[in-house]
């Protein structure tokens, strides 16, 4: 998947998880919400793994390179409108 498309996908999965986490905080026994949480957590994990491998880290703990510290590479999120 191209970089922008994969990034946008991660952003959508991330927001879906943000939403369901708040809902689960006040509805901890909702099986339907818990299934949704696990589904999107797994989808996001796979997408982030692919992004890290192809394009770079989204957190300082996802640097894959053994040769170069890529965490501080530009651009940063506030510098590109796509973010």
């Amino acid at each position: 998947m191209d970089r922008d498309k994969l990034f946008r996908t991660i952003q959508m999965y991330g927001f879906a998880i943000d939403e369901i986490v708040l809902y689960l905080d006040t509805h901890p026994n909702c099986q339907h919400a818990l299934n949704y949480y696990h589904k999107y957590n797994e989808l996001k994990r796979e997408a982030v793994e692919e992004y890290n491998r192809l394009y770079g880290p989204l957190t300082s703990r996802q640097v894959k390179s053994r040769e170069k510290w890529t965490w501080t590479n530009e651009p940063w999120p506030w510098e590109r409108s796509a973010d």
Partner: protein
Amino acid sequence: MWMYEKKLQYPVNIKNPNPKLAKFIISQLGGPDGELAASMRYLNQRYAAPYGEIKGLLTDIGTEELGHMEMISAILYQLTRNLTPEQIKASGFDAYFVDHTTGIYPASASGVPFSAAYFQSKGDPITDLVEDMAAEQKARSTYDNILRLADDPDVRDVIKFLREREIVHFQRFGEGLRITQDNLNSRNFYACNPAFDKNCGRNCRRRMS
């Protein structure tokens, strides 16, 4: 975007409540050289940082300071557990108690509420980084003062850890300042502001020297 981890950076396990200590340790939460001011200073300054290394440094240290805020709050929480009204009066914690009970509120040791006036975001990386280095030293001095006053080993252990982090951050900011200056005109670092002026920096240096 930030993610929360359900753990402290360094453990806080205080066996004996002691509101006398909480009365001055609170300054490292909401005081002029406290962790909240530190975090807000760095996270707000990031947008004027002209190089990836400085953006990373301000992001990562600003994030760590949020964790330190939580550690100070954990100390305050544990020092003010299970107090009787008599203990509150005898310790002088009554002035805080009447406004906040034992809730955690960012204020200085003298009771002044937290203020954004404790830090600057100048939009000039040399200015900001020099402030950041001074801020780390001011926080280190505050921790030294706390160590002069606090006798509980459980509290001292955590304060010593936080004090060391100030020294490490000071070192890293010094390196950040060096990286910034290496990108500027070596004959006059102040010839232009890389966060504002066009063509200020690497190209500028080549042209001007």
